[in-house]
């Protein structure tokens, strides 16, 4: 990375810091300071007595404020949230339909008999009266840290996707789930557990996964075993069959690392899409069989260059959507 790239990233980080601090309001702090001063007024003794007199009520006030703020942060949608038997360790309001905070994800921690840290991720939908109902839940075993939920929407599409994940720092693996929400129906598109030395991120409607692989991972018959483990990169793009018969993609442009796998995720079991692509740059790895789900299509980024991948309902159809692909060096 050169200095220019770093400066750009620092500029982005600055904007992110502004966004982070925008949510904080020091007006409450001002009132607390005034109260502290009022409480200290009239205490004529200086030194230790003054210190103690000032601190004792302060400790209580600070604790109360801390608890109040904690509740505020953990319950950003107010008091309409569900009554939980346990306290969620992370709660995030998300919008999966037209309303901004239409859904919510909670992560609960619970121990199994081995006292391992497990997480239960629960996706709630807010009803018209402000009540919540569970529409999806999933357990992530031996997971330590919940990650923020990302929502993927397909432009002019009819569905939204929630991406839920967790990681374990000690064991260095991740778990993740991709859940589709459409017309009040939930479908799990993707479930991966114990991804070794993994990193996962949602960028521009695409899920990018990095994992550490054993030497013989993805080895084809007759290929020489690589000398040591390496990194494998995978890009997942949700695809949706619209009611007009065309396919919609969550993104139309993607840059892949050479050797990476591109996976189109669909839920169309009976009508596989017709696909056209540049076979120099891309190679198909699996179509409907052996992929991450029963209806995924895997491509391998074989060679550096650019390619266009057309996806339509029938061969030669005019109703095709196009994905522009750039394959870059590792």
């Amino acid at each position, binding site marked *: 990375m050169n200095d220019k790239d770093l400066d750009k990233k620092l500029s982005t980080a600055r904007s992110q810091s502004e966004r*982070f601090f925008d949510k904080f309001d020091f007006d409450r702090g001002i009132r607390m300071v005034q109260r502290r001063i009022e409480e200290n007024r009239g205490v004529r003794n200086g030194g230790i007595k003054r210190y103690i007199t000032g601190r004792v009520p302060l400790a209580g006030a600070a604790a109360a404020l801390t608890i109040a703020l904690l509740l505020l942060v953990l319950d950003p949608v107010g008091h309409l949230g569900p009554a939980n038997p346990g306290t969620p360790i992370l709660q995030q309001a998300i919008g999966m339909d037209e309303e901004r905070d239409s859904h919510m994800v909670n992560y609960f921690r619970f121990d199994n008999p081995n006292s391992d840290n497990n997480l239960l991720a629960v996706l709630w939908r807010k009803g018209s009266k402000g009540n919540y109902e569970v529409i999806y839940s999933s357990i992530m075993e031996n997971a330590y840290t919940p990650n923020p939920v990302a929502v993927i929407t397909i432009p002019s599409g009819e569905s939204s996707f929630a991406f839920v994940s967790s990681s374990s720092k000690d064991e260095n693996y991740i778990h993740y789930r991709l859940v589709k929400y459409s017309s009040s129906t939930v479908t799990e598109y993707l479930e991966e557990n114990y991804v070794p030395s993994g990193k996962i991120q949602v960028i521009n409607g695409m899920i990018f996964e990095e994992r550490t692989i054993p030497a013989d991972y993805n080895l084809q018959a007759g290929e020489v075993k690589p000398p040591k483990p390496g990194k494998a990169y995978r890009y997942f793009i949700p695809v949706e069959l619209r009611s007009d018969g065309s396919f919609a993609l969550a993104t139309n442009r993607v840059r892949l690392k050479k050797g990476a796998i591109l996976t189109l995720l669909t839920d169309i079991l009976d009508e596989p899409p017709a696909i056209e692509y540049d076979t120099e740059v891309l190679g198909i790895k699996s179509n409907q069989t052996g992929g991450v789900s029963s209806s995924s299509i895997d491509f391998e980024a074989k060679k550096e260059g650019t390619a266009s991948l057309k996806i339509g309902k029938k061969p030669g159809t005019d109703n095709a959507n196009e994905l522009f692909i750039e394959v870059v060096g590792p």
Partner: protein
Amino acid sequence: MLTQPNPRTTGADNKKEVLEYLMKRFGDRVFKLAYYYVRDRYHAEDIAQEVFCKVYEKLDSFRGDSSYYTWIYRITVNKCRDFLASSSFKRLLPWGDLSTIEKQRNQADTNRLLEQVEGGELFSRVMDLPTRYRMVVVLYYFEQMTTVEIAEVLGLKESTVRTRLCRAREMLKKTLAGEEYI
């Protein structure tokens, strides 16, 4: 528009007026500075409140040798350093009490998650830098302070600030390299 009251006039009411002006003028910045140090919004808020209590207490003795801004920043830095020192000490006390240590670890993770959710991944990555490097980076790049101002606030030589900035940039280059998508 905030109008600066005259700090030279005496009297409790005037002191309160000055304090209110200072809190409105610098409250957010003091909170941010404290957060950059302690990386916990509740502790940062508590520190910010303590800073202004201290400011109120010392307002009569403020001689105007430096600007209010620098004076208040210095108080904040000292409070944060005290907090971190006492916090390190507290971490040694509950030895054997693993659940307390676990709670602290969980809280740190939660704070980091909030940074990612409410700010962004890059902000959180900058905050992951060790404190001495983090402080110069955030003051220089986020708060747009000059190296001279940073040196004054942190009580360092300007050359030290520059050295730390260089080292922090190298650390960030390594950390962020090859993570266009991360």
